[in-house]
């Protein structure tokens, strides 16, 4: 086993455990923190894949913004949300079966596609500049790029409308 594989395995175990604790811990703040650990694990995966930009963005957006948004949302709730009761619903095994089926399906798909075991092309040195060029290239992703902006604008308007208008009246 190479050092990379060991790092990968450790990260995988930590990420999965954190994800598991996210859904099983009764304390909502703890759940949010476990989720943050799981998200950090994903960032490590990106780093292992040499996807520097995505590793950093994963941390900036998911841990720096989304996780904090969640913590704020939790603190907005009243005490009732701090659930001390049973953490599983009566039909948890349905979810377990569905999860297992989904996992099997994904595994089968990955096996069936027969991905090349070695990279087919060398990783370009400045992939970020290429990404930037592709984003604004008329033959590339310029439409999704601008649509993303409009989408975010719509998201913000929607959020302000829902959260703020009701609050004011």
């Amino acid at each position, binding site marked *: 086993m190479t*050092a990379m594989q060991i790092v990968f395995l450790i990260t995988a175990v930590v990420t999965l455990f954190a994800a598991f604790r996210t859904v099983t811990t009764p304390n909502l*703040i703890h759940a949010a*923190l476990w989720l*943050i650990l799981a998200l950090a694990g994903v960032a490590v995966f990106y780093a292992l894949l040499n996807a*520097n*930009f995505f*590793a*950093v*963005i994963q*941390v*900036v957006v998911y*841990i*720096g*913004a989304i*996780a*904090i948004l969640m*913590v*704020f949302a939790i*603190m907005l709730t009243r005490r009732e949300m701090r659930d001390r009761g049973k953490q599983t619903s009566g039909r948890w095994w349905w979810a377990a079966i569905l999860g297992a089926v989904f996992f099997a399906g994904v595994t089968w798909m990955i096996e069936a596609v027969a991905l090349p075991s070695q990279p087919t092309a060398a990783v370009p040195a*400045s992939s*970020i*500049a290429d990404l930037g060029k592709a984003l604004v290239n008329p033959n590339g992703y310029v439409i999704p790029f601008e649509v993303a902006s409009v989408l975010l604008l719509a998201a913000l308007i929607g959020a302000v409308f829902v959260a703020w208008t009701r609050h004011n009246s």
Partner: protein
Amino acid sequence: MGLLSHPITLVADWLRNLFLGWGLSQGLTTVLLYLIAAIVVASLANGWVIFLIWFERKIVGRMQDRIGPNRVGPYGLLQPFADLIKIITKEIIFPDKADKPLYVIAPLLMDAAIIAIWAVIPLVPMVGMDFNVAALYTIAVGAFATLGIILAGWSSNNKFALVSAFRTVAQMISYEVPTVLALLVPVLLAGTMSLQGIVEAQHVWYIVLAPLAFLIYFIASVAEVGRTPFDLLEAESEIVAGFHIEYSGMLFATFYVGDFLHAFTIGMLGAVLFLGGWRGPGAEAYPILGLIYLWIKAFVVYFVGVWVRGTLPRLRIDQMMNFCWKFLTPLALILLVEAAVVDRLLLGFTPWGRGLVHLAINVFIGALVIAYARAYDNRRKRERPLAAKPGQYPVARPPQPAAEAQSD
């Protein structure tokens, strides 16, 4: 000559050969070298804090017409050591119902996040990482510092701490917006996110090309550290000591050290992004000179921060939020567009020509903004005549009880 021009490379090569001579593998040698480098840089940063604590107490003391530390050692220079010995032997109190593991992790996380920024700072020319996302990395690491504050506030099981933590986080995330937008300007001008690359691209310091972006970056960074005038997180009259109210002993000291280190790290980043980093006469021939230049520049930025701290009063929370969202953020957006459009039109210019045109436009935008702010302020004063006028008491004075005063 050899040792002077390439001391770091020389030492690194010597160590590498030494480790290889011991029969260690290539990979392990690299790991060991990196470990040594990391320990040296982190020690440098942490050791420097000891001096900063003395310096800041002395300077702020003088600014506030006090003497500052002057008992322990010459000019009180040994004061931080005395404080360190004292605080390290103090009890670390775990308050009732505190979430113990999180309570301990919080300061460590915050401190570690700030030290981690130093991993990507190009201290000397040529040596060091050419990390192609370094600029964003500094922001990403900051997310963990924010997290540390949330953890501290929540795990202390104290209302003041929790309120303070939330205020702090709201402030930190708000001011992160102008920070990242201002950071985009040097990235755009240099065409790279590598801090080493940004320094190398600064034939003309970016403070000439983008003085307003530097100002925004500096102000927003000071706010993110939470120093006066943005120190609402420790407004004593409202929330006592802030999110670290329950902390004592070394756990508190960790927050304290983190604060000073953060302030200097901000100066470091400001120097790297806008003041040419290690650039200076002879820096390329003698890399150690580059380190000294960088240190001086960072110290100047840091000193301005201390100066501001010693001078300005604290803002109110709504003022602080308005300043961020309604002033700094729109201005940062305008500057970004300016940098993008103007720099494209100046494609064939010499570095200095480009710099001067940018400077002129920046001055123009700055003048407009100041004129607008003046007009806004005047309008506000006209609408609310009771608000403070220069040289006048802010609220109408209550009638003086003259008769009682006489009978006394």
